[in-house]
């Protein structure tokens, strides 16, 4: 458990407003200078079901949850047992319930000693427009020490469209809540870090950051078919890409959306679509077309629990195999994964750049835990690599769209360029693009399409590599958060460990990995997937040290730093 941060949970059913209150607290903590990370878990109901908001506030950058929660406040306990597995508590966790909400549920009996009741509802009732969630907000703020003015500021911001009366009522509730928390044993946060200039940090979800990365990368056409948990990317992009002179089109299904993106990109516009596992499955045939016809597109898969419809609102890293190998035929393409909420921006932008530079589809594997969590992040620099496609410059005697060049990348004519006319072709073809079944053309085109990916200089972005040691942890995507935290704790405890968190999964780069594992004698592989897909991928494409361990766990529960820590410690 981290000592630099405090993790709290806030539960309630129906329209109790725990998410609103949680977000106000997040915003308050952020503007007071802390880092923070918020996620939310809800029951299966479409609306009005029970839910819990999980918030972690920290002195340092933080983009995943801790091992356990120091404080749990419930406005009511309805169906609370649904969340208990997601809410590890420790012996000294503080539990707060509303006095009118009935007894502490059976499943929390072990923590009864640190349970106290507060009259949240009663206080709210006693105030004009009083709401228990706002009183609770005050309690929580006081309990961890978020300054009152920051909370009321954030509250005013949230309620700005509801009028002054609502804001005043909310502020009064918060004050009352803070008052009422006076007698609680407090769990003070370490002081906030030094204040930062406006705009140096962003408060953003992974899905929003993905959208931002897309438009920064130059995406100006987006096709959409809604699916949980990817929809927010599309919803954020709809007005945003529009303001930048592009557009978003809602398609009839994923077969249409991916082909719309391919069509738009054929026309020269960097294009993207976002989906989740079931939608990506439907797109695979056409992603293969983009490989063969060499049309850049970016497809974001915000992974959720599988297989099939699975657990649509929970996170898992189990679409890796599909993203890597799911296309028919030999179809080399790019697969990338953001390593944190912040990295959703960088990785998506990089994906656009790579797809455009290499004229190939890029699949970006985000997941629900990145996409739907909101965090304070450093504002990423406005990187230069806006997607640039190598387009036709001079028309030679005969333009050959699929010319076998040294790099494997062939200059692309864009409709409108005189003399560049060619047919983008999904059949195997000659350099000119004419359909061909000859062994020589097939081999040449297969090799060129592979070579352009393997020979490209990806620089150091392929992975985040930290620490010098003989023990290494290899991970990818969202599990990087808990891994990094575990390794930081090990460092504090005096144990060095190397971390290799992979951002670029395809093409495989065995040489880069060899260097990254130089001197490493044993590795732990961490992934959130029952079948060990990442582990098998590593075995298939890389040479690993003889001693390999795995921490492969399916969703929906996140992997906790302590699990990683223990799995390494056990080794000794």
């Amino acid at each position, binding site marked *: 458990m981290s000592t630099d941060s405090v993790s709290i949970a806030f539960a309630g059913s129906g329209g109790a407003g725990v998410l609103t209150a949680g977000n106000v607290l997040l915003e308050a903590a952020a*503007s007071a200078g802390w880092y923070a990370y918020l996620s939310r878990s809800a029951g299966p109901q479409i609306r009005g079901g029970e839910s819990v908001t999980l918030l972690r506030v920290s002195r340092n950058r933080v983009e995943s949850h801790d091992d356990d929660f120091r404080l749990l406040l419930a406005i009511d306990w309805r169906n609370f047992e649904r969340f208990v597995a997601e809410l590890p508590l420790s012996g000294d966790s503080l539990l707060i319930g509303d006095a009118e909400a009935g007894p502490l549920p059976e499943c929390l009996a072990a923590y009864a000693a640190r349970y106290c009741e507060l009259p949240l509802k009663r206080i709210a009732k006693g105030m004009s427009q009083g709401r228990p969630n706002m009183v609770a907000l005050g309690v929580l703020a006081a309990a961890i020490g978020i300054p009152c003015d920051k909370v009321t500021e954030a509250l005013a911001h949230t309620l700005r469209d509801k009028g002054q009366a609502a804001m005043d009522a909310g502020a009064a509730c918060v004050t009352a809540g803070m008052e009422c928390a006076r007698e609680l044993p407090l769990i003070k946060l370490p002081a906030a870090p030094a204040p930062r200039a*406006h*705009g*140096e*940090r*962003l*408060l*953003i979800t992974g899905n*929003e950051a993905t959208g*931002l990365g897309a*438009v*920064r990368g*130059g995406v100006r*056409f987006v*096709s959409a078919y809604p699916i949980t948990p990817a929809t927010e990317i599309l919803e954020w992009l709809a007005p*945003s890409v*529009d*303001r*930048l*002179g*592009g*557009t978003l*089109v809602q398609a*009839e*299904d994923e*077969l*249409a959306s991916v*082909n*719309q993106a*391919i*069509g*738009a*990109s*054929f*026309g*020269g*516009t960097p*294009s993207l679509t976002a989906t989740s596992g079931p939608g990506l499955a439907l797109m695979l*045939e*056409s992603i*293969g*077309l983009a490989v063969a*016809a060499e049309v850049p597109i970016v497809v974001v898969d915000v992974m959720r629990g599988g297989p099939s419809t699975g657990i649509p609102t929970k996170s898992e890293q189990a679409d890796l195999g599909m993203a890597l190998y799911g296309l028919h035929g030999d179809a080399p393409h790019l697969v990338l994964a953001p390593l944190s909420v912040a990295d959703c921006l960088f990785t998506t932008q990089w994906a656009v750049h790579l797809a455009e530079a290499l004229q190939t589809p890029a699949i970006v594997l985000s997941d629900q835990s990145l996409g739907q969590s909101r965090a*304070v992040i450093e504002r990423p620099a*406005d990187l230069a690599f806006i997607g640039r496609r190598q387009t036709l410059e001079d*028309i030679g005697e*005969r333009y050959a769209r699929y010319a076998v060049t040294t790099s494997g990348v062939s200059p692309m004519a864009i*409709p*409108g360029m*005189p*003399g*560049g*006319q*060619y*047919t*983008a*072709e*999904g059949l195997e073809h000659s350099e000119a693009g*004419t*359909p061909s079944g000859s062994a020589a053309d097939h081999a040449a085109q297969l090799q060129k399409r592979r070579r352009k990916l393997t020979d490209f200089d990806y620089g150091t972005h392929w992975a985040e590599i930290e620490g010098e040691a003989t023990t290494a942890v290899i991970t990818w995507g969202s599990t990087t958060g808990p891994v990094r935290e575990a390794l930081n704790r090990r460092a504090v405890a005096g144990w060095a460990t190397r971390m290799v968190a992979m951002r670029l999964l395809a093409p495989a780069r065995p040489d880069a990995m060899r260097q990254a594992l130089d001197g490493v004698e044993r590795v732990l592989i961490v992934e959130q997937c029952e079948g060990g897909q990442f582990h098998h991928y590593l075995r298939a494409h890389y040479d690993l040290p003889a001693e390999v361990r795995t921490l492969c766990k399916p969703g929906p529960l996140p992997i906790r730093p302590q699990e990683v820590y223990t799995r390494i410690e056990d080794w000794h």
Partner: protein
Amino acid sequence: MDNGIANPALSARDYKSSVKPVWCPGCGDFSVLSAITKTFAELQLDPAQVAVISGIGCSSRIPAYLNTYGFHGVHGRALPLGVGLKVARPDLTVLVTGGDGDGFSIGGNHFLHACRRNVDITYLVMDNQVYGMTKGQASPTTAPDWALSKLTPEGPGINPFYPLVIALASGANFIARASSSDPNGTARMLVDAIRHPGFSFIQVLSPCVTFQPEQREWKKLVHPAPVEATSDPAKAARRLMTDDNLFVGVLYQGTRKPFQPCLEADLEHAAELDEAFAI
């Protein structure tokens, strides 16, 4: 190569590529190809400003035989390719082509929704009531008692798909039927279709001489539409109630506004969007 800009008078053959069609001798698609090149010449389109998009099938091979931009996509997905292209590049002339299997069987959903969406593209389907390329299976437009496919030895036994009816029911903005036996007539219709704003649909009866040899007779059986094109969907619907599936002509010319988002920016840099998240 003539790129069509230096020379303002392009003839039909300037739109043909040098690739030799794979079609069987006598296939109706040859005439459709020539109707297309005639159309482009009639409209004096710059070949570099035209994109011809298709799926998979004998008929879908057309893009490679033209000297315009082209896209030979996957089976059934030509329309979304064309829709994405046109929405992002409204300056281009986008012609989507294909077969009855490609367009009405695997691609049926995109047909429905392209009609509804009304993007300003033209969709030309070479209907031969069969899957030619896979060697003769029933397509949605095949007669229920056509028993010549090994896959359905007693005939598909199901109600045919009526392309004009579905086009009208789902809101296409221009609906016509042509016959490959009259390439000039087809070209005239295609000129009108391309000029007409919004989604234009032309069903071209185009015989598969190999797997539906009796379609050679079509050239004798087709006849001009007995009535003028209408802009009243109800009238068009009534006209279709007595359709013998062999009239040739424009059925319907609607006035719905094409779907075309404006592509003007009001922000210069994507990074300006960061502000909404700034702390």
